[in-house]
């Protein structure tokens, strides 16, 4: 009797299941210093989801639904939110981890429970290269060790830099990039003028910069969030020294021009996408959708930070393809579904076999664009305005 009831209940539930929406989770900072970036991820995902749903969804008409949680940029809160989204909300794919420490804390949960985790922002190298035998973590974003190679490449090409000085924030992110930059420099046989660290809350970086200047640095490699990066620029201003500055994407995270003053524009930093300039058909479509949906977006300058929107959009589109390839929302099948993506004409580029069991990063150094702040807008370097 019991079994009969169970069967009856199951059959009754089946049609409902077919219509059920597929939940996509997002764990990111939605408040505080990085709230803007979290909002950009949300918008990229939402525009992609709207587009997918308008086309009828996946798996014979199942629509997508976005469920968001705020991690307040702290790993502990991120872990709680990730568990809730995976186990209670039963999301098919979890997006998130704006900050590398948060993403790194979520990685083991994803891998142990065989549930896909997509990172559209955090650049920490070990997030995707996490050493797990069965890896469920994918990324559509910059990767520290690749950014580090790109920084050196850009400095050599643009500034003929021969003696770069490194000025890095003293935290795990700075450390990760120190490793990456050392490796990139060693690979090309370049000896740095010096490697200097500074604290997140330092007011004056003149002593560190004076050392680099005295050691003959002809270019600075900068790694730091927006606040610390602005301290470096202001200190350089006070010294009256203005070497070329090639930076990780820290400055993009806030009001860099307000904080750093007029010299902010001297900092060239890495981005994965810019909505300025001639756009591909996908770029035009996404920008149009953003302007229609969000009243505060009146042009490319209002899509900030653009990388959040672009990475999240492409990552969502490819996740939908992975679910379609899997024929279900079961974790292992979706994971393998990512490997089966052959070609996707996306926003950032046309992806060909973006993911393989050996490579969970869809973007490489050839996909980066270099940008600078002109007033309050992030624009590609050299673009006239």
């Amino acid at each position, binding site marked *: 009797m019991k079994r009969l009831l169970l069967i009856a209940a199951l059959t009754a539930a089946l049609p409902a299941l077919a219509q059920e929406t597929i939940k996509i989770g997002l764990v990111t900072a939605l408040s505080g210093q990085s709230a803007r970036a979290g909002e950009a991820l949300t918008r990229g995902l939402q525009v992609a989801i709207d587009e997918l749903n308008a086309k009828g969804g996946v798996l014979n008409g199942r629509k997508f639904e976005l469920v968001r949680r705020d991690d307040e940029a702290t790993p502990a809160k991120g872990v709680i939110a990730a568990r809730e989204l995976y186990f209670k909300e039963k999301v098919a794919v979890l997006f998130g981890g704006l900050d590398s420490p948060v993403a790194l804390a979520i990685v083991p949960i994803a891998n142990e429970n065989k549930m896909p985790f997509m990172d559209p922002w955090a650049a920490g190298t070990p997030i995707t290269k996490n050493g797990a035998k069965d890896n469920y973590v994918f990324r559509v974003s910059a990767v520290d060790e690749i950014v580090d190679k790109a920084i050196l490449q850009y400095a050599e090409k643009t500034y003929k830099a021969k003696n770069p000085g490194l000025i890095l924030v003293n935290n795990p992110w700075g450390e990760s990039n120190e490793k990456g930059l050392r490796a990139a420099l060693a690979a090309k046989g370049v000896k740095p003028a010096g490697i200097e660290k500074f604290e997140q809350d330092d007011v004056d970086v003149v002593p560190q910069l004076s050392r680099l200047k005295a050691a003959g640095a002809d270019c600075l490699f900068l790694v730091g969030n927006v606040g610390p990066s602005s301290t470096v620029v*202001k200190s350089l201003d006070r010294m009256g020294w203005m070497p070329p500055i090639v930076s990780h994407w820290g400055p993009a995270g806030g009001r860099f021009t307000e*904080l750093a003053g007029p010299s902010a524009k001297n900092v060239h930093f890495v981005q994965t996408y810019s909505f300025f300039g001639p756009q591909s058909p996908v770029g035009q479509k996404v920008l149009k959708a953003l302007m229609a949906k969000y009243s505060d977006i009146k042009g490319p300058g209002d899509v900030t930070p653009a990388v959040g929107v672009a990475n999240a959009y492409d990552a969502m589109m490819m996740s939908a393809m992975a679910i379609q390839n899997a024929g279900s929302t079961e974790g292992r099948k979706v994971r393998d579904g990512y490997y089966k993506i052959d070609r996707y004409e996306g926003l950032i580029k046309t992806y060909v076999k973006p993911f393989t069991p050996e490579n969970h990063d869809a973007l490489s150094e050839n996909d980066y664009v270099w940008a600078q702040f002109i007033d309050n807008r992030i624009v590609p370097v050299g673009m006239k305005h």
Partner: protein
Amino acid sequence: MIGSALISGLGLGSMYGLLALGFYVTYAVSSTVNFAQGSSMMLGAVFAYTFGVRLGWPFPAAAAAALVLCALYGLLVELLAVRPFATRGSNAWLMATVALGIIADNTVLFTFGKEPRGFSLPWAMASTELLGLRVSALQLAIPTIGLALAALLHWFSRATRLGKAMLAVVQNAEAARLMGINVPAAIMAAYALSTVFAGAAGIMIAPLFNVYSDMGTVFGLKAFAVAILGGITSAWGVVLAGLIFGVVESSITAFLGSAYTQIVTFTLVIVALALRPHGLFGAAALKKV
């Protein structure tokens, strides 16, 4: 490099000195301190930013209003976090002042926002060439104002009635009370003065730095080290200790590299205190039982 290390060091050192002076005034009068001096400093910067940038007031008015609010905050610290405990002989004010600082930081976080803001004062940042070194007007103003405030404090305690009353409280609170000196009022004045010093430091550092809710935390910590190093019982001592700390800190960074800054600086603090337990400029206090 020596020159630029000196300028950086003197600028930061006067900040430490000003905060430490705040520790000194309350300690001198009541043997208590506001451990969250860093938060008082942050409030100075946040208030000045709010008046000067958000409301567009001219800088002197914004700075003055910010200092008045800082003084009020100082009274609040004394009233809520020190008096209830100190009057009953408890040391819980240690914790209570830290707690009040955390509350202040978080209140600012919610109202002001977590995003750091830039407080730009072009006239203060204009730099000039001085003996072959580039110095901004603000970098010259900071040590000058720091030393001027220390001098003012010295004059105030020697030449004014309230100052003398406060010194009397230091020497013997019971006797001062018997002589008709309002001891609680003197202590409150000391707390107001203490947060005004910190607030002034915050306002002066803001254009060099960014304004945000926990901008004062590290400063507060270093300033306490400075206050102890200087010998918390000497006004000139703590200011000098601040300058020494700042110059040593930036010289280590300049000559040994930033990897060594914190390790060497704080090792030197411990060594200095081991050699002179009452601080570089402090006198051994006699505790009469």
